[in-house]
């Protein structure tokens, strides 16, 4: 586990010092700034149905932006070099997933606390608990799956996968707007999100343990 921690430690430093992260962070700051100076009245009323899902979307967006570095590392030989050390494939996957998830979750939590404050929506203890527990689990599961896909696929396949992911996101967004979502934090909704996340995490762990390194080192192009 010390090897995983060593990689996480260095990955966090690498992400924070990277210009890409600063760009993502400034986009989030701009988004919050727009909300702050927005002249839309009753923003809280408009935003209320989305408050439950907004942290998930923010987390996924930030995580998706950061996970692109994994593709870059694959083409630059970082992953292959790591595979030549005593660390195992699943440990590299875990370290990469956790480091991206930590940054994405922290950004999401901060933004998701600031937004309700700005638009005057109440912050309940349950909402804080939701942000601290459920959101990080969901983000980790989604990013774990994404990292696994990036490990497996070649560059062209990744581009196709990106289009599919965006298409799926739009469809989901459309469905969310179409059906009347519960804006309340209910045990049922939270349980469903947690259960789905845990299933995705378990499936990813199962799959990554049997990952053939040949797939990773021969899929750059």
């Amino acid at each position: 586990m010390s090897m995983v921690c060593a990689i996480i430690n260095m990955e966090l430093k690498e992400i924070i010092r990277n210009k890409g992260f600063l760009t993502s962070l400034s986009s989030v700051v701009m988004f919050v700034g727009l909300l702050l100076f927005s002249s839309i009245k009753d923003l809280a009323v408009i935003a209320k149905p989305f408050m439950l899902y907004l942290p998930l979307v923010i987390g996924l967006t930030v995580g998706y932006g950061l996970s692109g570095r994994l593709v870059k590392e694959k083409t630059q030989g970082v992953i292959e070099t790591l595979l030549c050390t005593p660390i195992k494939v699943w440990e590299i996957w875990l370290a990469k997933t956790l480091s991206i998830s930590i940054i994405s979750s922290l950004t999401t939590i901060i933004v998701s606390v600031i937004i309700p404050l700005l638009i005057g929506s109440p912050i309940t203890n349950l909402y804080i608990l939701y942000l601290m527990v459920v959101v990080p689990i969901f983000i980790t599961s989604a990013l774990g799956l994404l990292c696994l896909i990036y490990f497996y696929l070649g560059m062209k396949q990744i581009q196709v996968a990106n289009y599919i992911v965006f298409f799926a996101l739009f469809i989901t967004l459309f469905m969310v707007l179409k059906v009347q979502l519960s804006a309340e934090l209910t045990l049922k909704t939270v349980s469903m999100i947690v259960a789905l996340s845990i299933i995705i995490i378990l499936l990813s762990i199962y799959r990554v343990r049997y990952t053939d390194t040949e797939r990773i080192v021969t899929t750059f192009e």
Partner: protein
Amino acid sequence: MDSFLQLLVNSEEKNIQEDIKRCWNLNTVIEVHNLVKEFNGCKILDNVSFNVDRGEVFGYLGPNGAGKTTTLRILLGLIKPTSGEVFVLGENPLDNSKLRMKIGVLLEDNGLYNSLTAYENLDLYARLYGLANAVERRRRIIELLDFIGLYERRDDKVGYLSRGMKRKLAIARAILHHPEIVFMDEPTSNLDPKTRVLIRDLILELAHEEKTTMFIISHNLNDVEKVCSSVAILVNGRIIARGPIDELKKQIIGRELAEVSLEDVYMKIVR
């Protein structure tokens, strides 16, 4: 009684033969027997066999697409051979974490973290290679940074270093844990002559002072001739020639050694 004596003699001969074989095996650190690798029905490696002895600087040559990097990946246990046997330090390299502690790797791409400093890059790999003691780790990293002439730049981000500096840093990373074998893919590619000479000297110093076995893939035949004691030349997945450089010169060109370069031998084989 005679038959008993004959049996004893035979048994002693057999023991001597096994001892010789064992000694030979101890001296051989890389063994490749009838290696075949196919990708989607296309044969990349076709019945490749060679050995590398302990302390040897071995050059693995061939044109682009000959199968050099594929052989390297098989030796590193990153990909499975279709058939044939590979032993590195007497062990199967596939999914072998223990073996990876004993080998160092320099791939064609440096594989460095650009936003981390030179020191941090080496520190990460030192931890991965099991140098748990912080004082010992620091001592080794500083020793290596000094050795490659990057001590003054230790706190600079790798992204700001020159190509040659990055290459030297990647070499330092490969030898950080005192490996018994170092695999190098194009150690001097895209470098200016001065840095090439520096890296060549570094390889020779390692081979002579640390007694490290070197497996070098390179297109730069001038560099190979200066550092390698023997080579194998791979063409279309088959080894066409192998042996000590001087012997290859005699065999293939058949002229005085001083007049012939490795490039002459290589060009004659590849054509």
